[in-house]
């Protein structure tokens, strides 16, 4: 059946309003969109790493989730989800439960790229039937915009502030989706909020319904951390993919596929100029920053194209 956003939006919400995420927060958009990909007859257990999403969506005694949900700690969401899945397998085998459950974990880039990386790698290697979704907003937003290994080079973060002796973050962004693909899991993909959300929806559906451990990396911009107006969210996401800063692709059983080819590859500065975190890059004398950023994106893009058939 052809994808229709209107139809998808008519489904009962599994992540409901009333949570305390900031207006325009990418995390909430990501969670709603991923959970829409669940078939309505399937149950789910959501696991969540500590972070913005967790502290805003499950404040005792209120939960924003229609499904069962568990938060354990910051660095162990994947292992916790693996434990839930292990329990499901044995209880199902023993005939103690009949329902079909899907297991979905959400973590920010802090809980995924950094502190939860070991736990994630272990769970993926063990092959639990689960999907780990990273909502990547490129810094530790919950504690106040500190740099992560996902923060791009030159970004002004509170632990990589711009100053007389600093141009922002020194290191390039870690390529986590590639690292996860190197675990030889059946499905790994990158997506973001684009147009009618078809790309995200289809990838989420594949990730949820492909048996085994799957990984979905969702660029989920943070208006406060990136310093842009919340109403520009769609434009920021569009620019991220059209500049090839955040290419959309999937790795299915080891085969790399580009799922979006920009009709015209835009210069990276068009993405950067919209965000306060890169403001200093546009000062006279700092042209080299934009050149270096462009060079890095071009280099990564060429490598990705070579992998995709």
């Amino acid at each position, binding site marked *: 059946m052809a994808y229709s956003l209107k139809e998808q939006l008519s489904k009962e919400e599994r992540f409901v309003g009333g949570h305390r995420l900031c207006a325009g927060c990418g995390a909430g958009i990501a969670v709603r969109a991923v959970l829409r990909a669940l078939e309505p007859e399937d149950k789910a257990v959501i696991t969540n790493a500590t972070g913005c999403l967790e502290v805003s969506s499950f404040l005792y005694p209120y939960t924003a989730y229609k499904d069962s949900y*568990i*938060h354990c700690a910051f660095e162990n969401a994947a292992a916790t989800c693996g434990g839930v*899945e292990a329990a499901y397998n044995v209880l199902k085998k023993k005939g103690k439960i009949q329902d079909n459950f899907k297991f979905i974990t959400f973590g920010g880039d802090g809980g995924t790229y950094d502190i939860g990386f070991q736990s994630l790698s*272990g769970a993926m290697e063990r092959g639990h039937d689960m999907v780990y979704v990273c909502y990547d907003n490129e810094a530790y937003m919950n504690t106040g915009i500190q740099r992560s290994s996902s923060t791009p080079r030159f970004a002004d973060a509170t632990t990589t502030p711009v100053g007389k002796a600093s141009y922002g973050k020194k290191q390039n962004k870690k390529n986590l989706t590639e690292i996860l693909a190197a675990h030889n899991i059946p499905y790994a993909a990158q997506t973001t909020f684009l147009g009618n959300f078809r790309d995200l929806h289809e990838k989420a559906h594949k990730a949820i319904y492909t048996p085994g451990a799957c990984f979905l990396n969702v660029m989920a911009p943070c208006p406060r951390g990136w310093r842009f107006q919340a109403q520009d969210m769609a434009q920021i996401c569009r620019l991220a993919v059209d500049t090839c800063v955040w290419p959309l692709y999937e790795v299915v059983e080891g085969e790399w596929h580009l799922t979006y080819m920009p009709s015209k590859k835009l210069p990276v500065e068009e993405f950067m100029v919209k965000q306060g975190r890169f403001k200093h890059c546009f000062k006279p004398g700092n042209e080299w920053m934009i050149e270096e950023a462009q060079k890095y994106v071009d280099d990564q893009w060429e490598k990705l194209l070579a992998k995709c058939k």
Partner: protein
Amino acid sequence: MSIRERLSGNEAVAYAMKQINPDVMGAFPITPSTEIPQYFAQYVANGEVDTEFVTVESEHSSMSTCIGAAAAGARAVTATSSCGLALMWELLYVASSSRLPITLALVTRALTGPININNDHSDAMGARDAGWIQIFAENNQEAYDNYIQAMPISENPEVRLPIMVCQDGFITSHAVENIELEEDALVKEFVGEYNPEHYLLKHENPLAVGPYGVSPYYMEAKKAQAEAMKRAKEVILEVGKKFGDATGRYYGFFETYQMEDAETAVVLIGSSAGTARATVDKLRAQGRKVGMLKLRVFRPFPFDEIAEALSGCKAVAILDKAESFSAAGGPLFAETRSALYDLENRPKAINYVYGLGGRDFRVEDCTYIFDQLDEIVETGKTGEVYRHIGQRE
């Protein structure tokens, strides 16, 4: 009918696990507890258990696995030692505050700094405020018996707290001794099925676990844990009595040895009780009125009962197999002396830190301690209360 066998402490615990057939085990090897998941893996490989055996990449993930599994409605177990327990530290609190009755077989070992693989209680004592029930064994028989009692205690709806079943690394875990095992049917019936009221995979309604507990709710959650720990006392005694009725081996909070008329006594935990018992026998033969109190249950701490048991003594030495660097004594000392405070005529109390990192504790050492107690009784002067024994100066 019990079965007479010869097993190490690790084998005994793994065997009890097999008889119980838990739903999920998350495990990562660390000396000296490694053998427990190893033996268990063989039971899994042989098809002797139905357990989902999750071979995680760290102890952090083994406790996380147990938390996820227990929240989902499964009976979850793990085993570890020393740094493995230290790596779980944050999650121990998550398990207890989420009221998940996970069973952890702890094979006690020194904590690193410097690295040392031998026995003391610094790992268990480091976790004493984590909200877990902690039960200690002197030997392989007690390790086995305590393990079988663990789930009926921790899963009791009045308790619902995780439990640590502790035995001494190498001394108990690796020494092969005679043991009486119980029939599978008896163990299965004694332990029963785990049927929680609320769990993630419940058909009727979803559940949310692990909330952000804001200030108006956090303290209520902690108070509820504290109340559950108080209620655990009664349940521990009930289960110990029921176990005794089924097997002939009865258990309480502690064991007293020659305490009826004892004027001096040592208080300790674990395998060194054998040494203390031999010392008591030797000194009793010389006509000295000495005794021993071997603590089995450290959390919840049996304050009133310990005070009562020691109330007839003139002087007691409390032995800690762990340092707490308070500059005033170890953890067992601090709590036991606090328990004595309410007695009308309380005995004088001193502390000996002993046996760290596998340092031997000999009858000579224990005799020396009793000699020191006699001196305190004679002179009426306690002197330095915080002492160490067995180290080179």
